[in-house]
C-alpha cells in the first residue's frame, strides 16, 4: 500500500489544493511501480494550514504555477523513495519514453515496461535483455496504433552516474544491435541507478515511470505476509 502526506504552511484554497495535488500525483505517485499491484488503501493527502501570512493561493494566483511545480517535484522525490524501497529491490530504474505521438501512449508504454516481471528479473540479473523490453512495448494496449512505428523505435540503457560513455544502444531505428559490448553492458547494468530510454520517433510527447528490479527477496517477503 502507498500512503503519503504533504504538509505545508501555505494558505491554499481548497479547489486549488485538490487540483494541485491531482496534477502532482499524476506526475509522481501515479508513475511508480514496484510489483504492478494496486492496493485497496492507496491514498495521498495534502494539508495547507495557512500559517504563512500571505493572501490565499487560488488557481488564478500569480504564484500558483510555481507552487504547483514545486509540489510536483517534491512529490516525485517522495514517490521515488517508495520505489527505492521496493521489496527486495537492488536497482532503481527510470523508464523514459520520448517523442511519442501522444502522452497517453507514452505513459502506457512506460507503465507496461515498469510492470514486466521479465524485464524486472533481467534487471536484477544484470542481463541486457532488450528482447523483453521490446516485447513489453509491443503488447502495450495503445490508444493510437500510430504511436508505435517499428521502424522508428530506439531503445537504450543509460547510466545515470555521469560516467562516459553513458549509453548502450540496444535498438536503433527498429534494428536490434546484435553485437552488443557485453563488458560495457555488464558494467552499466551493475549500477544501482539506471535508465531505460525509449525514443518512439512518432511525435513530441514524453512520459516517465520509475520502477525497480525483482529479486528472490520479493518472494521471501511476500510468501508469508499475512501470517
Amino acid at each position, binding site marked *: 500500500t502507498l500512503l503519503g502526506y*504533504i504538509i505545508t504552511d501555505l494558505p491554499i484554497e481548497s479547489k486549488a489544493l485538490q487540483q494541485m495535488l491531482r496534477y502532482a500525483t499524476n506526475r509522481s505517485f501515479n508513475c511508480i511501480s514496484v*510489483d504492478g499491484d494496486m492496493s485497496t488503501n492507496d491514498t495521498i493527502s495534502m494539508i495547507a494550514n*495557512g500559517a504563512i501570512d500571505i493572501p490565499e493561493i487560488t488557481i488564478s494566483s500569480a504564484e500558483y504555477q510555481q507552487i504547483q511545480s514545486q509540489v510536483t517535484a517534491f512529490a516525485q*522525490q*517522495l514517490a521515488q*523513495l517508495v520505489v527505492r524501497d521496493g521489496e527486495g529491490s537492488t536497482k532503481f530504474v527510470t523508464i523514459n519514453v520520448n517523442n511519442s505521438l501522444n502522452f497517453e501512449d507514452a505513459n502506457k508504454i512506460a507503465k507496461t515496461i515498469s510492470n514486466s516481471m521479465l524485464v524486472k528479473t533481467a534487471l536484477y540479473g544484470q542481463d541486457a535483455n532488450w528482447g523483453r523490453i521490446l516485447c513489453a512495448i509491443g503488447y502495450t494496449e495503445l490508444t493510437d496504433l500510430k504511436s508505435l512505428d517499428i521502424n522508428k523505435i530506439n531503445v537504450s540503457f543509460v547510466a545515470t552516474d555521469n560516467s562516459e560513455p553513458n549509453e548502450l544502444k540496444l535498438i536503433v531505428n527498429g534494428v536490434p544491435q546484435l553485437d552488443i559490448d557485453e563488458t560495457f553492458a555488464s558494467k552499466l547494468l551493475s549500477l544501482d541507478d539506471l535508465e531505460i530510454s525509449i525514443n518512439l520517433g512518432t511525435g513530441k510527447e514524453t512520459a516517465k515511470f520509475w520502477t525497480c528490479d525483482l*529479486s528472490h527477496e520479493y518472494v521471501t517477503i511476500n510468501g508469508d505476509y*499475512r501470517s
Partner: protein
Amino acid sequence: NNASKVIDKYSLYVPKDGVFPKGFQVASTATGVKKNGSLDLGIIKNINTSRPSNAAAVFTTNKFKAAPVLVSKKVLEVTSGKGINAIVINSGCANAVTGDVGLKDANEMINLVNENMKNKDSTLVMSTGVIGQRLQMDKISKGIKDIFSQDKFGDDFNSWLNVAKSICTTDTFPKIVSSKFKLPDGKEYTLTGMAKGAGMICPNMA
C-alpha cells in the same frame, strides 16, 4: 549471486534533520497492533488558528476500497476539504474488506480525534497492513486517547521521523522529505512529506 547485494537504504535515504511547516504537531505510539511492538499509530494535527486549513486527497481506484478510504472520501465531500485539521493513521491492519464493522471502526478513529480536537468533520483516517482483518479497536482507541491525554505531540525532527516510522509496514526505511521554498515576494514556505510503501505498489489514484 553477482546480482544479489545488501544496500543500507536507511543510511542512504533517511535524513538526519529537516525543516517543518509552521503550525503543525505530530505524535506517534505503539499500540500493540504490530506484532513486534513497533510504532503503529500516528497523528498529524494543525494547531494554527490564524485561518482555517484546507485538505485534499487522491484515493485508490481499486473497486474494493478500504473503509478508511471510503470514510475519508466522505469527510472531504462533506467539508469540501475545508477545516480539516488532523490525519490519523494506523499500520499493521489495512481495515480493508471489513464491511460495515470496518466503516464503524474507521469512523470511531475519526470521532476520537475530532473529540480531542474539539471539531466535527476535521479528521481524515488512513490504514495500511493486512487485508481482511478487523482493526483491534481496543488497542487503537487507547493509543489515540493516550496520545492526546499524555500530549505526546511535538514539532521536532524526531517527532516527524517517528510518525514516518509509525506508518511503515514492510518498508526498510521511513520516507520523509522536507524543504523550504521562496515565493517571488521573498516569503518562505515549507513542504514536509512522508510516505510509506514497499510492496503492492502500482497506484492509480484519482
